[in-house]
């Protein structure tokens, strides 16, 4: 009888008594790991601005999160790393030359207004980083759309644009469409630049290669599933293909759309935000298709001024996520008609 040393009463709890070991922190850490290649690329192409902006956003987000939880007398939540993720994602959506105080303002907006006022992680309706970006775009329109000061003399196909004035590929396309000019030609060199990230744009969105490496990691770790990114990117591709077939003179090849702007960052890292995207696979597919259509409408409609639609597409779809969830429940076992 070795049992004398045992406590008299044993712990009682509801089943199950075992757990997979998954945790919110681990998910957030995985997202951060997956963003690391894009951060490296960002540093390579945009230099210290990448560190300056990312550092500013992350620190502000974490401090804001801590202060909010304190003020609301809630348990601390900076340990779940979600504020860090928001900071990194927000920074990745900012142009390299943006003044630091604007990044601070955006970060405060993301955490206080978009996240903690709703109740914190899990209760927010909109992706905090994207909502903050929309806020900044309205508040700081000029600095938010100024694309120069890349570390490199970023240039598009020779002669098509002056790197100093700063334009993104999507910006150039939009200008041409609006002016009724011919669409600028994107040579293989430009496409390679789009792929590696040697191009004007937000600091974290330009390198398709780095983002795809991170995406592969997220898929491998099962943090995300293929449904949203494939539906999103697939829709963009099909939409752009149709456009190009119908009107080759006024539209670019579909893969330019895939590699340009914030599509890959958005499709793999923002649209897949668990809290603000649908919970069932069917819902995810609808969500992805919706994101794709809205993105392309914003990008290609002649009357619109804004060249890029990823942020707004995802935000709009965030808004209908509860509806999608309601309409896309799985069939319950035993209810086959």
């Amino acid at each position, binding site marked *: *009888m*070795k*049992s004398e*040393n*045992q*406590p*008299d*009463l*044993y*712990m*009682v*709890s*509801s*089943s*199950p*008594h*075992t*757990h*997979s070991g*998954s*945790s*919110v922190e*681990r*998910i957030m850490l995985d997202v951060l790991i997956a963003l690391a290649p894009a951060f490296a690329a960002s540093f390579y192409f945009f230099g210290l601005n990448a560190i300056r902006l990312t550092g500013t956003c992350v620190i502000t987000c974490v401090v804001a999160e801590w202060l909010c939880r304190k003020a609301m007398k809630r*348990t601390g939540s900076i340990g*779940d790393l979600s504020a860090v993720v928001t900071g990194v994602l927000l920074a990745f959506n900012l142009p390299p030359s943006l003044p630091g105080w604007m990044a601070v303002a955006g970060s405060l907006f993301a955490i206080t207004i978009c996240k903690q006022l709703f*109740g*914190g*992680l*899990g*209760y927010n309706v909109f992706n905090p980083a994207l909502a903050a970006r929309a806020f900044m775009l309205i508040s700081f329109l000029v600095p938010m759309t100024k694309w120069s000061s890349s570390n490199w003399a970023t240039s598009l196909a020779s002669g098509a644009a002056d790197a100093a004035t700063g334009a993104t590929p999507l910006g150039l396309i939009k200008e041409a469409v609006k002016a009724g000019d011919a669409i600028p030609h994107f040579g293989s060199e430009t496409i390679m630049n789009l792929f590696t990230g040697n191009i004007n744009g937000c600091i974290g969105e330009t390198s398709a290669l780095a983002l795809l490496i991170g995406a592969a990691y997220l898929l491998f770790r099962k943090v995300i599933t293929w449904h949203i990114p494939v539906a999103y990117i697939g829709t963009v591709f099909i939409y752009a293909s149709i456009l190009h077939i119908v009107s080759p003179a006024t539209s670019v090849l579909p893969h330019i759309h895939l590699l340009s702007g914030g599509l890959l960052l958005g499709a793999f890292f923002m649209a897949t935000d*668990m*809290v*603000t*995207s*649908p*919970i*069932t*696979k069917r819902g*995810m597919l609808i969500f992805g298709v919706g994101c794709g259509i809205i993105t392309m409408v914003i990008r290609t409609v002649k009357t619109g001024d804004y060249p890029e639609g990823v942020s707004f597409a995802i935000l709009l779809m965030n808004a209908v996520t509860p509806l999608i*969830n309601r309409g896309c*429940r*799985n*069939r*319950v*076992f*035993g*209810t*086959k008609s």
Partner: protein
Amino acid sequence: MQTIKSPYNFRGGIHPDYHKELSSGAAIKRLPMPAVLSVPMSQHLGAPAKPCVKAGDVVQRGSIIGEQNGFISVPVHSPANGKVTAITDVSTASGRLCQAVTIECSEAGETLSMSPITLWKNTDRDELRARIGEAGVVGMGGAGFPTKVKLSPPMDKPIDTVILNGAECEPYLTSDHRMMIEHAKEIRIGAEIIRYILGAKTLRIAIEDNKPDAIKAMAEAFEGIDGDVAVTVLHTSYPQGSEKQQIYAVTGREVPRGGLPMDVGCVVENTSTTFAIYEAVVKGIPLIERVITVTGDAVAEPSNLLAPFGTSYQDLIDASGGFTNAKAAKVISGGPMMGFTVSSLDTPTGKTASGLLLLSKKRVTQYTSQACISCGRCVEACPMGLIPSELSQFIEADDAEGAEAISLMDCIECGSCAFVCPARRPLVQHMRRGKAIVMAKRAAAKH
């Protein structure tokens, strides 16, 4: 005999660490008769048996100490020779109080058995059903539903398929596994009796592919049997042993919501139950003991013990080398996914207790649950196609009706959702609470 891969996969499910190697190699050992047994009157689903002995009575092993009380009920037999010392209330593994007959066991003596029915093939089916009822046989996989009732489907529900459930999908547990290896021949006869009673043509022995030795043993034992018989090898996936999921995996049929396996022409019997049917019919021995796996990292010698009902957990632990140096933090009746925790080692075993799991602090973690982050992992894991995250939010908001409207009552409480939840939400606990509220409301509406 034919071995086939399961033709269908149920949706969802999880892959926990199984830890079966702790006890899967341990041959079944008979527990020396404990000095005292405390035999619960409720070891089955339905009305508890009524004690028909009193303190001071001398009882014989196999004699009835609790009478069947209603249609969905079974009698309880004395697992030992001895003297009744008291009839008291005990707390069973599920936490409910029930009457129990305390027996001071004396030296081994004769077992009171019923007359063997060796020529069961020439025996009236109703007589066999009655025998199985009299022997107190219930589903030993966990539900404890009286087997006699299960084997009496109404005329308009013909049964064409009998499935022997040898999945044993709960981590750690190996009692069915050992039974299939060590008592394959008896299980075969039990299965033939079931098939005869139901007039079912098809028989499938469903075993997960992590038990190749059991698959082999059963395939050999069923060699030469007539009719459409095969071992169906299931993917190792929890909850493969759940009746509805298993019927789907084996036959592709979906038990309709609120329905029973007989609605799709199936009857599922656990392998240990099948052995009990054999014992009851062919040998006339009532159900008074079973194999229970005593395992976990807090027990010195994980084992599979053949123990009489009413054995205290303490006796089982002592017979398994006692505790290791790691103190047990949780004592679980059953497996880690659906088992019940108990607070005391005085708890007695019963017909449905297939395992006693002792986990040290290292394996028991207490969590603070966080807000749902809508990751959808519970939705993916749910074998019933529910949205556990949403259900739990309804119940947290005290809206049981809202939860009911999105199929709360279809939850089988398998725990897959809580197992995968990164926010460590006690989803099953929420479901149970919500279901209890709904049941109470339904009961109130009836009166």
